[in-house]
């Protein structure tokens, strides 16, 4: 329970007093006011004095940080910019200051290793039907209340069972299972940036693609380095509202938008995912502003995935997103000019498939991860010969 501030107390007190005098229809407004008076930021905190005495297992010195005179350090990977005194642990739980040196604890110790279809990421415009070796190590710089991987994202790396896989071994394994890519996914790869960048470099050398599935909450400098070896990304745009970012996710919108711009500038293929959380993300005005921003800053070609929300983790008292909302918002986004808008987590929805933005004909018919129809020749629509944006086989 967050601290009750005086402002919040006064607002809620006034709302509660007014409640008794209001007729039924006005009650929704009162509840809305109370909700606004509610906790407004779930951003994580630094874990004071919580670092292990010695670097754990294969811990590696952090990629980007700078030292302060009193043995404190400032992490440079993500916009939180954690200032860690000696023995402190960062918000992501993965970076620790041991004797004035910043370490990444999760290096070489993934907790999840799976072979996934690329459609599961979701990446619909990147080498369909290909598979990837998906890896994750513990940690995340966000605190999403609906996290579906909280078991690995909201815990210390030392508290999990892990594999020992160094970058070269990850790539060997990917080749062994005939995967075409390595995906850094599930938890938040920014929190194990050092492991990701080393692995991605080896993968690139061996001709594998690198896929980054992320919240995009990263500083420009490390992102720039990552872009050198990155082939595709799926970045979560949680909501086009800074308030909602703080309230549901514990981050800020601005840096995520900068990430999109940087990926666009570096010509990395990416797709955008927005989970349509009812009561938060499904505000038509916010969504309209989001579509406008995408068109103005990124153009019409990056696919947008609108996912149906299901109650999960701590956000388990909201209903699933109405399918009608997803349908409406998909149509709205397409009207605004975004050419490829998909609906996820709704089997059988027409928004699962790819239609040519020029002739409107069905190009890729999907049933879950299966592709039943594929009417592209390289990157060209078989029907009208229009070039379809993406990285195709």
């Amino acid at each position, binding site marked *: *329970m967050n601290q009750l501030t005086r402002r919040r107390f006064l607002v809620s007190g006034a709302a509660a007093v007014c409640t008794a005098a209001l007729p039924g229809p006005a009650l929704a407004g009162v509840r809305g006011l109370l909700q606004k008076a509610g906790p407004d930021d779930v951003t994580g905190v630094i874990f004071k004095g919580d670092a292990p005495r010695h670097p754990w297992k294969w811990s590696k010195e952090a990629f980007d940080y700078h030292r302060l005179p009193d043995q404190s350090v400032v992490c440079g990977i993500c916009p939180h910019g954690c200032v860690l005194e000696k023995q402190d642990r960062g918000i992501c739980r993965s970076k620790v200051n041991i004797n004035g040196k910043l370490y990444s604890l999760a290096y070489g110790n993934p907790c999840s290793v799976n072979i996934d279809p690329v459609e*599961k990421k979701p990446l619909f415009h990147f080498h369909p039907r290909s598979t990837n070796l998906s890896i994750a190590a513990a940690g995340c710089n966000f605190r999403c209340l609906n996290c579906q*991987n909280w078991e690995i994202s909201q815990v210390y790396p030392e508290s999990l069972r892990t594999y020992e896989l160094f970058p070269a071994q990850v790539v060997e394994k990917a080749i062994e299972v005939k995967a075409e890519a390595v995906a850094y996914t599930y938890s938040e790869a920014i929190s194990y940036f050092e492991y990701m960048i080393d692995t991605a470099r080896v993968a690139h050398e061996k001709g594998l693609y690198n896929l980054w599935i992320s919240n995009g909450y990263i500083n420009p400098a490390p992102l720039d380095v990552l872009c050198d070896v990155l082939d595709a990304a799926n970045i979560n745009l949680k909501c086009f509202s800074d308030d909602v970012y703080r309230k549901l996710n514990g981050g800020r919108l601005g840096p995520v938008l900068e990430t999109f711009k940087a990926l666009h500038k570096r010509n990395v293929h990416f797709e955008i995912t927005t989970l349509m959380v009812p*009561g938060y993300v499904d505000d038509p005005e916010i969504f309209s502003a989001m579509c406008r921003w995408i068109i103005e800053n990124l153009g019409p070609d990056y696919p947008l995935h609108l996912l149906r929300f299901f109650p999960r983790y701590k956000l388990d*008292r909201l209903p699933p997103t109405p399918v009608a909302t997803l349908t409406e918002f998909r149509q709205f986004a397409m009207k605004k000019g975004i050419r490829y808008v998909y609906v996820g987590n709704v089997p059988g929805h027409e928004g699962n498939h790819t239609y040519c933005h020029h002739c409107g004909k069905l190009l890729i018919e999907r049933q879950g991860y299966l592709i039943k129809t594929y009417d592209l020749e390289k990157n060209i629509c078989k029907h009208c010969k229009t070039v379809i944006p993406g990285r195709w086989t």
Partner: protein
Amino acid sequence: MKKSADRHIRFIVIATGIASVVTQIVVIREFLTQFNGNEFVIALILFNWLLLGGMGTFMARAAGKKASLLRLALISVGLIVMAPLELLMIRYFRDVFFIYGSSAGFYSTFAYAFLTIVPYGLLLGFALPYSLVTARNILPSFSGTRVYIADNIGDTLGGILFSFALVAWVTPFQALCIAHLPLLYLAMVVLAHGSRPKTTMAIAGAVCLFALAAGMALEKGSLTPPGMTLSYYQESRYGRIAVYSDRKQHTLYLDGKPVMAGADTALAEESVHYPLSQLPSVNGVLLISAQGGMMAEVAKHRPAFVDYVEIDPVLSDAAFAFGFLENLSGLTRIHEDGRAWLYLTETTYDALILSLPEPDTFQINRFFTDAFFNIAKTRLGDGGILSFSVTGFDNYIRDEQAVKIASLRNTAKKHFKHVALLPGEKIHFLCADFAPDTDIVALLDVKNIQTDYIHGLFHGNVTADRTAYLYEHVNIDAPLNRDFSPHLMRLMYKDWFARFSTSPTGFLVTLALFFSIYLARSSREEFVLFSTGCVLMGSQILIIFAFQILFGYIYEQIGWIVTVFLAGLLPGAMFGHRIRAHGAKILIIADGALMALLLVFLFLITYAGDRLPPAAFLILGLSMSAACGIQMPVALYLRGDKKSGVIQAFSADLIGAAAGTLITSVILIPYIGIIWTTLCLAGLKLISAGLMYARPS
């Protein structure tokens, strides 16, 4: 004058008892809806309620010669006004303290419960001893036992009123209104004898009526979140059923959590087709509860008949009325406890599909135990299959979850030759005497059954790697989950704490310190009353759990259990009052009787079980309660029945009850099981008897 004052005070105490018990039950039900519905939350509310009551009682020490009947009436007015306000506070302030749509962890629930119960709880605890002080200011010989007895009468009547009338017919605010009317009437009668009676009565009456009416007027509004329409709302015996609508979608909420929203295609397909695809032909299917969209999937297998068991007819009716479940030919709706149905029916089924929430309450845990799998097996025909599911994992299986799954698998394996696991949206258990085939897509293709989710996503989600990963981590020697030793419960509690990155250790250490200090400062008589309060609540919880396990969740009978525990105190207290002059000997004998009754309970559940008539448990509860009731008048007699002694005795009883509730339900039963918990309670009484025996004469 003195006689009428005596009568007024006793009636006010009785009316306060009625109102407070109804308020307590309404508040507990509200918290179960607004927060996690596990036993931890019930225990936290009861603990806070009793603790604050004890603190309020303690504060009444300050009441002296100024205590008067008029002021007692004004305290009653305060209680009447606060009851609906408390409920409104719980509903409205939730969104101030917690993020809309999110659940809350242990400590935040505890803090919120404490803060919202403070005004009513303190005032209620204050009212009882205040009435005694008032009575003694008028009639110095007025006995504390009379207040205790009057309070017991009120509590019993309140329990009966709610359990057998209000719960079935009215909403929470209506229940509060009805339960407080007698108190309002008595307060008005008393105020009528004061100075300026008309003005006082008019103001007090208007304030009370406004508060009670405002609560009822705000009933539905306070349940409707912005942006949604409340399309259906009904309080059933088993919980709150509400259907909210938003953009053509209806969502059915049970106790504050969404349970059905249109068809959850993935879950419906997995739950139905994983088991039914295993059968060459499907004749009879038993569904214990159901997910939205399941009926349509069942229909694809063309069963001859389907029995759908759902204990709550209100929930079932709403599910069909709003199209979450479809009517099938051959479908029979049975409103019965699922486990009880298995004991009752003689029908044999080809498939038994459980669609229940996680086993994180004792009520649900009964469907995942050794005894349940045993009875379920007997209702399956040759080649039949049982299936159920628990929360799955996306990419990592935690140690606690692995132990949970292993425990379930080991428990089911005791009764079925094969237990296959499928890691889909949830982890599905297929239990049969044949080896289930896990290539579900191929099986469905053979039967020519089309699906949206399974055909598209099965091979991406239920991969050989993921399945191997699951088996690798659950092939461990985990204990079986048994009715009286619910191993799963302690894992679920751990899980709940892990989800909120907290641990109960800090709370328990603080609690242990608090009770240690309290007990170190208490007299022997207070310790007896503390331990009696502890045993009374502890044994009530034991009997409720045992009753549920053996006979199923039958609300009226649970109402009876609560009522007999309240009712037994009354004859016990009256008898104790008569024989109080025998002093410490009586306390020791009553302690001995409690120990004996706990051992009888142990013997009954171990050797007789469900062969006993349910009435046996009621008689046992009544006897335990009566043995507890005997002790209060005797302890008051030994303490001298002075104001301070009476207040300390009442406090000891309430604080003991708070400790008993919490310790029994959240520590002892989950960690050491029902049998050892019973022995612990008997051990506590042994210490209490020993202390009294060693008491200097």
